[in-house]
């Protein structure tokens, strides 16, 4: 059996629109992941519907802010907080923002530096 498992790049101006469309079509967030790349971050938002999975890939610069998707998918708050705390991604307006106090680690944004 083959199921959808795709990664689609998306630009910031279309991002929220796409997220809302996903919600309307009955997808839900299953995973949010940040990756440190040169000069910024790569954010992957994975949505699932039954056995299909589609991932939106958003590239952001280091000091660029990202809108939170918790207004659309409330339950994404844990993983958004995690990306903000461990990587230093600037995510705005998270519903239930822990403000860097989710894991309360001694070192700030450990994943920001490589190695």
């Amino acid at each position, binding site marked *: 059996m083959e199921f959808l498992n795709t990664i689609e790049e998306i630009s910031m101006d279309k991002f929220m629109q796409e997220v809302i469309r996903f919600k309307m079509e009955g997808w839900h967030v299953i995973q949010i992941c940040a990756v440190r790349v040169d000069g910024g971050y790569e954010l992957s938002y994975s949505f699932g519907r039954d056995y299909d999975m589609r991932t939106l890939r958003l590239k952001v610069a280091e000091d660029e802010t990202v809108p939170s998707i918790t207004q659309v998918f409330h339950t994404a708050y844990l993983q958004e907080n995690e990306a903000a705390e461990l990587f230093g991604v600037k995510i705005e307006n998270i519903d239930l923002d822990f403000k860097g106090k989710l*894991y*309360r*680690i*001694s*070192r700030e944004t*450990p994943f920001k530096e490589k190695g």
Partner: protein
Amino acid sequence: MAKLAKSPWLLHYDGSSCNGCDIEVLACTTPKYDVERFGIINTGDPFQADILMVTGGVNHQSENVIKQIYSQMPDPKVVVAVGICACTGGVFKECYNIKGGVDTVIPVDVYVPGCAARPESIIDGVVKALEILEKKREAYAARKKAGA
């Protein structure tokens, strides 16, 4: 060990382990290994515990909890580090959020190796801890008698 001087009570705390050693500590109290036949009881209250078993390495957050639990236990007391992470930090030693073994925070009397520590070695560690506890108890009584 000819006989047990008393029925020691255990207190278990999960420093920042992977769960492997924790479920093995718990498995020690269930029918196959059954440390309870030695009169050992797993308690949740530091004020009534004689032996503190710590699994997993110590991180920034659990550091204070472990110190506090240790200070709440009455003298004489023995600390057993269960599993390689509790001994030295183990496979997580290089992680940014791991400080090292339990002995970076409180004095440790018995080190139980293994990843995960097997129930047999955990029981062995407890038996060793009992001997140390007995010695500490005698020393404590002697100090008391001398009026220190």
